[in-house]
């Protein structure tokens, strides 16, 4: 078989961490999810203690770490996969099929455990590992033997989380970033679920060497996801329709190298329309008229964007009690050391002129705060003919209105409003069923293809 390109050099596809890389830390099986940047000095707070993240540098994504106690106190150290057994899902030979025990004799009181807090501290001082402490707790539990295998496993997991917390090193990519925000801070990404995001990308035919027009009021998630799919080719044009650009901090969670970052550019609608008074322009005649020229303020925009970025950078707060924190964003001097490329420069006039000549190859809108139809109406003239588009909203009505208008003004075909539905299953021997908890809603999408309609502009 020929042609084994393995393009592993691009930063995006690196599978081993490096100093300055962005990571997603999954603490105790999803109990907490934390974005972080691995530097000499970055730390992660678990319980009351700060742990250095240095041991994570140079490890493959997917590695698992556990808090271990040693002579110089506790630290994160890498677990070999063969050593991990206590995770219910991962434990292959766990056979609950023939269960003879039940919970009839279990009494809930505080007397079941005979080891005290002091006993545990003492064990620690003697150098016991987390796993040894868990074994000791089990040995001293009056009820453990009577529990069903399932409850035993739950007990073990609970103790493990407390006495030997684990940190899974995950790769921050569109999938994990979207899922993390959706779980912890859904409002920041407009309640966009990962399956919805995936549909937006394919419905808008996001591909290498294309020019995608994006209105991203979901924190940069959409911009990042689109850029990831283009791999440093083409352009993601992050468009703003009001006076200042929308924040896109989430883009920094991705590990984009320079080649991808410089493909993420910003433009205001007025910049895109400004020179369009040339009557020979082939697209969008009435747009330039509709746009108030007083809105042209795109020039100082990149400055605004920069300062907002720095603000994010300088807040060095660490762990809040729960949930996800965008911690350990590097301080000034660290930034210079690990050179995190910046995305979102202002589009050059040359690029803008190219878009004006060719039109964008597709459009994606996720702008819950804007009027959907007016936004789409203003942007459609900037798309090339036959360009697909996908409009996201967490409410149905704006999309229904927009679809109706697109239809009656004969601007598009293949119009469809769809709502994805995602269900996860627990698959275990004799215990397979849909998961008890599910997300009942992940947003709506209006999709279609722009047609070339000489009658309507």
């Amino acid at each position, binding site marked *: 078989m020929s042609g084994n390109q393995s393009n592993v050099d691009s930063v995006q596809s690196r599978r081993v961490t490096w100093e300055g890389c962005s990571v997603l830390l999954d603490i105790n099986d999803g109990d907490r999810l934390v974005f972080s940047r691995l530097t000499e000095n970055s730390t992660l707070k678990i319980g009351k203690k700060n742990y250095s993240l240095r041991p994570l540098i140079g490890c493959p994504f997917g590695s698992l770490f556990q808090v271990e106690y040693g002579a110089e106190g506790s630290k994160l150290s890498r677990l070999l*996969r063969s050593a991990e057994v206590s995770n219910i899902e991962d434990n292959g030979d766990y056979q609950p099929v023939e269960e003879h025990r039940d919970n009839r004799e279990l009494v809930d009181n505080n007397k079941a455990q005979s080891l005290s807090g002091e006993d545990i501290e003492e064990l620690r001082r003697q150098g016991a590992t987390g796993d040894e402490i868990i074994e000791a707790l089990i040995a001293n539990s009056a009820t453990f033997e009577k529990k069903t295998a399932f409850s035993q496993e739950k007990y073990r997991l609970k103790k493990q989380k407390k006495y030997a917390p684990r940190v899974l090193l995950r790769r921050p990519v569109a999938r994990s970033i979207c899922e993390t925000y959706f779980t912890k801070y859904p409002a920041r990404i407009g309640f966009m679920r*990962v399956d919805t995001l995936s*549909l937006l990308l394919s419905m808008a035919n996001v591909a290498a060497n294309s020019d995608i027009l994006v209105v991203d009021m979901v924190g940069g998630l959409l911009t990042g996801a689109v850029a990831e799919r283009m791999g440093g080719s*083409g352009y993601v044009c992050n468009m703003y329709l009001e006076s200042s650009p929308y924040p896109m901090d989430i883009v920094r969670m991705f590990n984009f190298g320079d080649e991808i970052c410089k493909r993420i550019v910003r433009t205001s609608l007025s910049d895109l329309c400004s020179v369009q008074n040339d009557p020979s322009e082939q697209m969008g005649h009435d747009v330039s008229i509709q746009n108030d020229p007083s809105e042209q303020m795109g020039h100082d925009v990149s400055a605004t964007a920069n300062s907002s970025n720095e603000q994010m950078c300088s807040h060095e707060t660490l762990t809040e009690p729960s949930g996800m924190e965008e911690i350990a964003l590097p301080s000034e001097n660290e930034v210079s050391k690990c050179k995190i490329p910046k995305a979102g420069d202002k589009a050059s006039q040359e690029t803008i002129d190219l878009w004006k000549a060719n039109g964008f190859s597709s459009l994606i809108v996720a702008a819950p705060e804007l009027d959907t139809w007016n936004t789409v109406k203003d942007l459609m003239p900037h798309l090339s003919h036959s360009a697909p588009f996908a409009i996201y909203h967490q409410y149905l009505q704006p999309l229904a*209105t927009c*679809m109706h208008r697109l239809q009656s003004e004969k601007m598009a075909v*293949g119009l469809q409003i*769809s*709502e994805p539905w995602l269900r*996860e299953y627990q698959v275990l021997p004799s215990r397979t069923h849909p998961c008890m908890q599910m997300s009942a809603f992940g947003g709506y999408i209006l999709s279609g293809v722009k047609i070339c309609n000489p009658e309507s502009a």
Partner: protein
Amino acid sequence: MLALDPSKKLSFNKTIADGDLVIVYERHDTMKAVNVSEGSVFQNRFGVFKHSDWVGRPFGSKVYSNKSGYVYLLAPSPELWTLVLSHRTQILYITDISFVIMYLEIVPGCLVLESGTGSGSLTTSLARAVAPTGHVYTFDFHEQRAASAREDFERTGVSSVVTVGVRDIQGKGFPDELCGMADAVFLDLPQPWLVIVSAAKMLKPDATLCSFSPCIEQVQRSCEALRMNFTDIRTFDVLLRAYEVREVKNDSMQGHGGSPSQQPPCKRRQTSEGSNKQESISSTIMARPSAEAKGHTGYLTFARLKCSE
């Protein structure tokens, strides 16, 4: 369909040329893939369309038949292709396809393995996702299907990033030359559990696998096989509910205008001159789910290769 050469950007503002693949759009559920050829005609219930009339027009154009029927000529994309390709097998549709690509974390430059190729519906989207620098190796043990798939990939212009192999993957696994090189493996096979060991050999550490199976028994067996070398094993079902949109005029109720509160606040301002006069009669845009929908396609089981070192 793909722009593999950055100097020739994907731009639909180019016009239709002889030999181009176009998607002839009649209605959302009636489309056809046609290769433009100056001397030919396209025929449907609206009449006869001459290809020569199409050449030189922009993609997205409305074109007329001898009886003034019309169709639209759209530029091909993997989504449209999935709707028009010839079904030699069951195929994957956009909902599953989108989710698979996102969840397998496929990006440009990735090396992806797939079996079976089937009708190449998924392969076409995989090709878009890995292009321009990655590659898809897809295998089917059915010689004829592999050959037809190859022809399709030529036709849709993705063949430079796709290699179709004829091979019994369940019997022999993936070829050894690809060992340790894959960023993702996708299986749509009757007995996927037979391939898990081979798939584990092909994947890089922490790389992803997905198996698509219509039946839960298949899922059960696959998951058992996966537990050895994989972690993060998760099974999903993903569906799409479509909505119908109607404009309902309520002029019979209140006469002219209706109460202002009935109107959506956002957009009843003045619209450009061309819009219809009905604006002044109160009407409501209503949406409801379509009565019919697919209730099941298949279960998608994902897993990640454990890091061994």
